[in-house]
């Protein structure tokens, strides 16, 4: 059994007072009786330190919305409502719930656990249109005495040969392509904003601790300056430098204009993997890089757009080992696909990454080349469940972006994109603090992934890839069950 991979989480409080879900208002009618302070078990209500005769302003961010104070107040003078700052967080994809649970995980490193049943919509678009399966009786993955049995989250990046050939002497004659083991199916993607030195520093430290990778713009100032130290080009400290030189680099330089780029041999040799933006003649660049360092793994970053299946197929046949497919920040893909609706009419619609990932995966399976290439999928991966679901849809691993910033307290107000001041001063984060917050977040995500795997009776995440038969898709199950149930139905019209 491999050495147990463990993410050590350390509670790391936020720097700023968090935005709570509720606002509480104390009316003028308050008689300072202190009943609220007695009934509240979350210490929202307290007396003023300066004047014990008066009640202090409620500490709103601690409120958990139990309504006890409101209902017990003898003057009925307390009111509760959902906070405006809270409801304005993020947008319709990156909802306030998503942002605040990521904050919680970055602070505590714990899986979000709560009481009462699920409270959200029945289903929704994209990842919300599928459920993962579980096994009732067989395939236990946990042991009552020894705790959870080891569930591996290791994924391999690179080409996997279907078989190895040997010569008559028993020597391997197949060319074994280079591969990288990542202990969890999550790497860190380039950032849409918040590209500050300290932020990069925090993410790089977290990547190094977690033994995963960070994709970073090769032409960016951080990579050229500070990043050089991180990848071992310069020695910062004696020990650290030596360690880094031993191939411990966790950076994946991203080259946005590969055909115009002049490749630096040192850079290629220092990094285990390089990512190139997709261009028509990207394959020629790949050969150039491979000549510089046959051991380096090259990933091509391809947008989820029109004909993505064919592009992936072509690249795979062309020898590319890793393809990073990306959608926009909200998981929306760029092209329009031909869709057939229930009445067999076709129309074009932009798909979400769950569907597009399935299409690409199936295409590769049909051509029997799925294991020739590793698929990294990114765009709109907002919660731990998305990691599991995108892997079920056919990805090998994911790359995440915004959640990394949320770990650093980002509120996704987008002010920085308009050159306004950041309310949480992202540029001033302490890299150590930030790294721990990211480690906590990833630790919590990984544990949730393990919960899903455990429920399915799987012992390794590699087995999850493309396991669409172990998922329940809304469209299929509606058809399978409700077509039968409502077949006798004369009219589907709601206005009957």
């Amino acid at each position, binding site marked *: 059994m491999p050495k147990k991979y463990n993410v050590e989480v350390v509670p790391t409080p936020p720097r700023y007072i968090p935005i709570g879900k509720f606002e509480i208002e104390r009316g003028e009618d308050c008689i300072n009786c202190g009943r609220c302070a007695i009934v509240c078990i979350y210490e929202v209500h307290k007396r003023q330190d300066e004047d014990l005769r008066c009640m202090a302003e409620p500490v709103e961010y601690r409120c958990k919305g139990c309504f006890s104070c409101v209902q017990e107040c003898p003057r009925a003078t307390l009111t509760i409502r959902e906070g405006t700052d809270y409801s304005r967080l993020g947008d319709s994809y990156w909802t306030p719930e998503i942002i605040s649970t990521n904050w919680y995980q970055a602070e505590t490193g714990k899986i979000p656990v709560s009481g*009462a049943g699920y409270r*959200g919509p029945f289903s929704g678009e994209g990842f919300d249109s599928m459920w993962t399966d579980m096994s009732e*009786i067989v395939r236990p993955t*946990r042991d009552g005495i020894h705790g959870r049995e080891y569930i591996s989250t290791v994924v391999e990046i690179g080409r996997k040969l279907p078989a190895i050939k040997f010569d008559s002497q028993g020597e391997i004659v197949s060319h074994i392509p280079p591969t990288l083991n990542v202990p969890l199916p999550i790497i860190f993607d380039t950032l849409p904003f918040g590209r500050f030195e300290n932020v990069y520093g925090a993410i790089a430290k977290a990547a190094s601790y977690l033994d995963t990778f960070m994709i970073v713009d090769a032409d960016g100032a951080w990579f050229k300056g500070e990043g050089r130290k991180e990848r071992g080009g310069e020695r910062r400290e004696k020990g650290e430098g030596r360690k880094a030189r031993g191939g411990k680099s966790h950076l994946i330089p991203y080259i946005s204009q590969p055909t115009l780029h002049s490749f630096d041999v040192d850079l290629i040799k220092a990094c285990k993997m390089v990512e190139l933006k997709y261009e028509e003649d990207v394959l020629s660049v790949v050969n150039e890089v491979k000549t510089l360092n046959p051991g380096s793994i090259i990933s091509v970053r391809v947008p989820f757009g029109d004909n993505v299946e064919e592009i992936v197929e072509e690249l795979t046949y062309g020898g590319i080992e890793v393809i990073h497919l990306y959608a926009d920040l909200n998981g929306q893909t760029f092209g329009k696909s031909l869709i057939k609706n229930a009445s067999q009419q076709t129309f074009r619609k932009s798909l979400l990454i769950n569907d597009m990932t399935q299409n690409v995966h199936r295409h590769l399976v049909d051509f029997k080349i799925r294991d020739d290439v590793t698929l990294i999928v990114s765009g709109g991966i907002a919660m731990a469940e998305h990691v599991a679901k995108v892997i079920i849809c056919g990805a090998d691993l994911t790359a995440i972006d915004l959640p990394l910033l949320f770990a650093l307290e980002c509120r996704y107000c987008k002010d920085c994109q308009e050159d306004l001041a950041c309310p949480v001063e992202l540029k001033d984060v302490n890299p150590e603090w930030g790294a721990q917050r990211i480690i906590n977040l990833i630790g919590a995500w990984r544990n949730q992934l393990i*919960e899903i795997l455990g429920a399915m009776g799987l012992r390794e995440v590699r087995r999850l890839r493309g396991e669409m038969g172990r998922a329940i898709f809304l469209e299929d199950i509606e058809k399978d069950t409700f077509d039968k149930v*409502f077949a006798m*139905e004369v009219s589907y019209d709601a206005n009957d």
Partner: protein
Amino acid sequence: MPTIKKAPSRFPNEICEIEVQRDISKCINCGTCAKVCPFGVHERKTGYNRVSKTLSYLCIGTSCEDKPFYCVNHCPRGALSLGVSSEYRTIGDYRWTRDLIIGTWKQAETGIPLKGQRYEIGNSGGGFDRISFNFQDGEGRGENGAEDMAHKSGAISTEIDLNKREGKKISIKVPFYGGGMSFGSISLSVMLAKAKAARAWGTFTCTGEGGYPEALKEYDDNVITQVATGLFGVMEDTIQRVKIVEFKYAQGAKPGLGGHLLGDKVTVEVARMREAISGSSLFSPFPFHSVYSVEDHKKHLDWIKELNPDAIISVKVSTPTDVDMVAVGSYYAGANIIHLDGSYGGTGAAPDIAKKNIAMPIEYAIPKVHEFLKQEGLRDTMTIIASGGIRTAHDALKAIALGADGVVIGTVELVALGCVRCGNCESGRGCPRGIASTDPELSKAIDLEWGAQRLINLYAAWRGEIVDVLKRFGMKSIEELVGRYDCLCYLDEGA
């Protein structure tokens, strides 16, 4: 029929839709409002300088506007106004909307069913919330004339048999029983209130997996005891004293995970009952570590039958894609009841990722199992009980029309006792409202008699609604509704 008695909220300020707002900078405490309001919203106590706080929940709302006693019109200073209360806007979620919560409270207070779609359907946009009844016309017209007789005599049966196999016959008077909530996840008085209501209505409640508190002993005939994967508090004696034993493989809210009781809630009392150490989190394993096959499963059921030959056995499972196979397996292992717990079910503590994502909602699982058992020729020997998101009597009826014999309820009982579904029952001192908590201070909040009465009232309202719907379909027994897909219709998206 148990007695229905009014059981008002235990809070001084009940949350309600319309709030009577008083601008205290304008109010001169003249007491005119108290004189005009016939509902007691306003009170002007003699000897006090000020008008008492307004009791908005007694207000009849905007329908008062054209009444001669409308306080807003009478106030000489224009200090009063009606508005939607901030609490009403804040409470509730997609599955349990504000109206479902407040409606459940009202039914638990009065015992009278509430009419109107907002008290019958949630806002989740799928499943039960998109299924509605296919009433052919205003009032029910029968197919065979028998229901006319039923109408006249008022004899509409809501009784169901729980055991369709050989052995002891057990039936319940209403087509629902209380779900397993363990001592530890909820307080003893809540458990007892549930048991008392179950006895009054001739149905059952379930201990959950946290042991069998002594105080429940007098309700033995109405208690189901649970044997779950953690085997907490399972004793020979507890198995021998009950009529139904429930084998819990999984729970809908956390399929494939096993029970969670976080350390904070493992008080000395709870630990003693579970034979564990206080303060340490108790996670039940998943699955049963001695059950890897139907044969192993049978061995366990045989062991129960050996201890208590009269007991009937329910097998509680969650809803994976092969739930139909699991149901058949349970039949061959000797189970009498297959209890399906859908993925949107209640819990005292579960990882959010599990609640939302693992296994299928109950609406799909019921017809799947119902059809498969029919196909295998076993439907008449197995009782299907559904749970996991049954919020209203309408949900229960829909579940039955989809193919279940009856349902299990849980969250709705806690809502009846004043739960607002804030979702904080999992840690710390537990429920801030004293329902799902064993904290010595907090759990005093629920008075056993009051709690039992609230549940008795709720059951009465549910039964009333069930009888009404059966009447409209012209049926004389709930058993006629089982699997009657034609009684349901599916609403278009966005309807």
